[in-house]
Every structure is written in C-alpha cells, then in structure tokens.
C-alpha cells in the first residue's frame, strides 16, 4: 500500500477537532490495550494532533511531525513500524519463514504457506480482518504490518493463497517518511 508513497501523496494535513482527537485516541486505546499506559506519552493531550489525508482514503495520525498511526477509510488504526519497533508487544504477532522475508520486503502479501511452514508461527486467537505484526524467522523485529484476510484457524485449514494483506513494510514509502514537515 505504501510501496510508492511520498510527500506528494499527502493531499491535506489538518489539525483535527478535539472531539475527533478523542475518538482517535479512544479507538487506538481500544485496539491496542497494551498502549494504554503510554497514550499520554504518544498522543499528549496538549500537543496538536494532525491528521494527514492521503490518496486512497488513507489517513495518517501525526504528532510532532512524526507519523504514528495510519488507517484506511474507517478501518482500524495501525501503528507505523517505527512505533511498533519501540513497543513490539502491542500487536498480535505472525511469523513468516525465512524464505518469505525477501518478498514481504518487496511489498508482497503474506501467503498462508509462509505462515504454516516450520519457520512460521501464528498467535492462535487472531480472527480475520485484524491488524497483525509480521515477524520473521530468526529476527527480533517486525518487518511488516499486515491485515489478516483469514483467521489463524482458517489459514491453517486453507493453507493456500493470501493470508495476510501487507499494509506497511520495511523500507516502503511510509517507512522512509520519518518526519513530516
């Protein structure tokens, strides 16, 4: 999704109303209970919260010029990889085998066999349409953020085709956008 993404894709960047801010905070806190104690640090009530609107109904939540979360249409908010690296335990984790790393880093969606093979692993209770952190065999840090198409159970059962949509991966456009001006 962020394969080609640059400053030009941001069509508008606005400071949003407090009521909207509250809503964003709330939905993030709901989605990531692990972040609750950190909310005040991440999204301080005092500092202005910007929402950058981009093409394809994409929104970025920007605090102090750093993009922290993104979402599509009214979908769930997902952290950027830089944020996830700092707090790796806030999301459910999927692990792909080593062979898949190359493709995931090129932006490919995650196929079921890469998750079910010996190198892969899944948190069992994940249902479909949930954001997950994609880890890799033998690596400590997440390499992508995905959005499940099938539940973990179904992925095991079907074992074919796309299991997780690749939303944001290392070295894509959003990753390179460390700071917004």
């Amino acid at each position, binding site marked *: 999704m962020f394969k080609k993404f640059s400053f030009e894709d941001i069509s508008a960047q606005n400071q949003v109303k407090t009521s909207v801010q509250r809503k964003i905070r709330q939905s993030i806190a709901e989605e990531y209970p692990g972040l*609750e*104690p950190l909310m005040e640090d991440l999204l301080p009530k005092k500092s202005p919260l910007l929402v950058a609107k981009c093409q394809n109904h994409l929104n970025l939540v920007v605090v102090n010029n750093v993009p922290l979360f993104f979402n599509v249409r009214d979908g769930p908010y997902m952290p950027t990889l830089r944020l996830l*690296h700092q*707090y790796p*335990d806030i999301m459910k984790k999927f692990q792909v085998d080593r062979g898949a790393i*190359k493709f995931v880093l090129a932006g490919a969606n995650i196929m079921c066999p890469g998750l079910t093979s010996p190198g892969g692993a899944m948190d069992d209770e994940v249902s479909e349409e949930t954001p997950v952190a994609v880890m890799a065999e033998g690596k400590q*840090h997440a390499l992508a953020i995905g959005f499940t198409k099938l539940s973990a159970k179904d992925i095991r059962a079907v074992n074919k085709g796309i299991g997780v949509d690749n939303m944001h991966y290392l*070295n894509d456009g959003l*990753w*390179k956008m460390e700071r917004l001006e």
Partner: protein
Amino acid sequence: MAEKPQPVRVLYCGVCGLPAEYCEFGPDFEKCKPWLRVNAADLYPDLLNEDNQKDVDKAAEQLQSVGISSSGDGGGASAAAASGGTSKPEEVKRLPGGKIKKKEKQEVVIEKIVRNKRKCVTVVKGLELFGVKLSDASKKLGKKFATGASVVKGPTEKEQIDVQGDIAYDIVEFLTETWPDVPETAIFFIEDGKKVAAA
C-alpha cells in the same frame, strides 16, 4: 496505573536505515557491510570471518608492497586510499522498483508567463535540485518582492514556485545571494521558448 513498558531501542543501520538484522534483505547489503562490521558484528558472524580473511589478505598485500617498494609508507597510503574508496557514499538514489534514478541536471529555469495582457507571473523551476526548501524559498521571494509567491505543482508532478508580477529583472541576483549554492551559470531564462543563460 500499570507499569509503563519502556520503548525498545532498535538498532537501525546507519547506511540503509533498516533495522540492522534486515540489512541482508535491504536495497544494498554490500554497502551496509562496513557499517555492520563496526556496529552490529554479533548479528552477522559471517561478516567478521570474512573481515578477518580480508585483513589477512591486506596484511599480506602490505607486506608484499613493502617488500617491493622498500618504503613502508607507500603501502600504508595505498591501503588508506582503498578503504576511503569503499566508504565513500555514492549518490545513486534507488526507486522502489530497484531502478537507479537518473541524476537530474542542476539548473534553475525562470519563465515569465503573461496573463490578462498586462499582468504576469514569474515561474521558478528547479530550485529543489540545489537542496533549497521550496516553501522557504517562496516565502523569501514573496517578502523580497512584496508579492504573492506560492509553491505550485507544475507539469509532470514537479513543484515550482509561482511569483506574482514580473520579477525577472533582479531575481538572479537575489537567488545567488540568498543561496550561495546556486551558481549564476546554472540559472536560465526562457524567452520566446528558448533557453537563455542568465549570466
């Protein structure tokens, strides 16, 4: 309130910006190697071995060169030159597809567009190639010439600065003075569809 989990510090590669462990899958592993050897040697044990091998080779080479030239400093200088060559960053930008982006010619093009017969707009293109921030530049231009100046998306997705009014007469001086990086020789006017050097 629950205990705050501390943020994890991730080691990012100084060359490609990825977490160090992903360098091997990054855009250019070869270029990251020298950095990794220094900063994340434990992640890539193979590299160290390779390095040792190289050191041995280098030492042997040096010994040889010393033997031939019979002056130690000659060998040392050549080794230093070699290491300098490898660490020099190359200015090749890679597009997402892995293609190498062509370096654009650095020049500023100034064009006067007449509208409504007696009003005109001066368009400045290419300032960003000199590392000038366009938003800053437009502000400065507007201030200097006391007119409206804005950053506009021009044809082919490039950004340019539109300044209201005919300011072609002393924009060259202003540009070269405010941004010493911009040489006068790189500034061109467009007159009757032809490029004319300003200098």
